[in-house]
């Protein structure tokens, strides 16, 4: 797999995916060096997805999932955050910056926040 991309976003389709759809409805598009992958739930993010993306050349990986209490699968968002923390600890162990993997909570109404995050990145 080749990924000469600056940023990979692993996104819960029920929150982040909706926020992106709202952003795109206003005519905004993702920067070309951002790859966005909608997942059925934040809980389907696996540590191997993140590591493989970094291995393939992604500079950063974001995991976007619902706020606590808002996950339709009950705890998928908490598992997503746990897995991000696990990878961050592993990156620290091998001398790479843990900040290369980021977890953010998001809701479907946060299109403006999503736009701001992408601009800051």
């Amino acid at each position, binding site marked *: 797999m080749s990924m000469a991309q600056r940023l990979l976003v692993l996104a819960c389709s029920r929150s982040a995916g909706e926020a992106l759809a709202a952003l795109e409805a206003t005519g905004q598009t993702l920067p070309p060096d951002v790859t966005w992958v909608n997942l059925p739930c934040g809980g389907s993010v696996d540590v*191997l997805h993140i590591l493989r993306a970094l291995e393939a050349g992604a500079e950063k990986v974001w995991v976007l999932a619902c706020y606590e209490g808002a996950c339709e699968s009950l705890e998928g968002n908490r598992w997503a955050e746990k897995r991000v923390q696990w990878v961050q600890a592993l990156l620290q162990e091998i001398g790479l910056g843990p900040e290369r993997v980021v977890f953010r909570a998001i809701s479907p109404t946060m299109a403006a926040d999503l736009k701001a995050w992408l601009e800051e990145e």
Partner: protein
Amino acid sequence: MIVAERKPMVEILASIQGVSRLLVVGCETCVAVCLAGGAKEVAVLSAALRLALRERTSAVEILERSVERQCEEEFNAPLAEDIAKVEAVLSMACGVGVQTLAEQFPDAIIYPALNTQFMGRPEAPGIWAERCLGCGDCVLGRFGGICPITRCSKSLLNGPCGGSSNGRCEVDPEHLECAWQLIYDRLARLGQLERLYAIEPPKDWRSAHDGGPRRTTREDLRL
């Protein structure tokens, strides 16, 4: 099952320093069940090693394999071709699996990627706890199915000691129940409290590792 955990990455990286072709081998039995050394963990460790070693000037090739039971030579035999191609093998099996590879492939350099911890069981998701020391002379039948040798921090056969408080062990009250409280409660439930009147004699540890490395022979299985 045999429970293990991955060694610190700094130790693993130090062991494979200078290696340019590496084979990472998992085991799909105990260490896969305790999520330490199965195919998934082989993939994760290999990805982490590739990321860590990317900064090196020379490229490192990492092969990933996993076998059903690394402690049995039959399952390892298909690894021969891959082992011949690499400079070192990183085994994600327990210490038994690592030694089996070392015995079976005497010319190969084998490094352990796990620290083998104990024989135990999962108490809850993400928590494994020790249940058997393998003493070679099981006493569970006399203690309501709770092992005083393994679960009592002092391995007392005539307990409890004075460090039992509110059912917890003084060694680690937060995580350890007092084995003797558990034994008392269980025997009471079974109506066998009279067992506790018996004084247990000193244990003969020759059946344990104290008598040297052990082996078992079944003549009915040998020709």
